[in-house]
């Protein structure tokens, strides 16, 4: 079993829809949670960055972390065709654990927003 599981999709939604992307993980040491967006033939670009449990909102994007369930989500409101990309979740332990610099990635969910 992988440490981080992510549904690869593909996921197609109409423009304006609310998109929900999710990851589950097994390592309870993970404290930092990130979402990266990767356009075709580009590198991953940091979208959201959260620490421990809770919600974080940035424009149309909301990241949620539920550490008790080992489950993280990214919500995209009013989705646009320009949101079409692969979304990767990533996470890492706390600094004191000694593996702080090492990110563990999900396999990515491919999203297409249809105009």
């Amino acid at each position: 079993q992988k440490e981080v599981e992510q549904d690869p999709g593909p996921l197609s939604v109409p423009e304006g829809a609310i998109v929900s992307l999710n990851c589950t993980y097994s390592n309870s040491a993970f404290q930092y949670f990130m979402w990266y967006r990767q356009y075709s033939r580009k590198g991953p670009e940091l979208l959201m960055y959260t620490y421990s449990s809770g919600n974080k909102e940035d424009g149309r994007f909301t990241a949620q972390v539920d550490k008790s369930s080992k489950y993280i989500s990214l919500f995209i409101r009013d989705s646009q065709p320009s949101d079409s990309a692969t979304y990767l979740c990533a996470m890492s332990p706390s600094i004191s654990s000694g593996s702080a610099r090492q990110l563990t990635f999900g396999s990515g969910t491919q999203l297409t927003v249809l105009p």
Partner: protein
Amino acid sequence: DTAVSQTPKYLVTQMGNDKSIKCEQNLGHDTMYWYKQDSKKFLKIMFSYNNKELIINETVPNRFSPKSPDKAHLNLHINSLELGDSAVYFCASSQEKGRQGGFNQPQHFGDGTRLSIL
């Protein structure tokens, strides 16, 4: 003003050859990384250097050898290329020392080098 730049963008070569990929970052970060992304988009860390010192060395064949001449550059040399080495290789950087509040700093990625072995 590209933050993390890799060269070349594309690399097509024969099995058995030796090749190098170069990475440079102008963000002033002290830590750099090499990742490999397979055809299923799975990103896996290979190496990490902090201030020219190797700090992460995952289970990677010793045909792969990273080199960091200074903290703004991290190169990857691959000997005796094999078919299974075909992938996209990403360089990334982050600032580790002096981070505030004990938070991990996010990593910034280059656009990748697409390596195809014939």
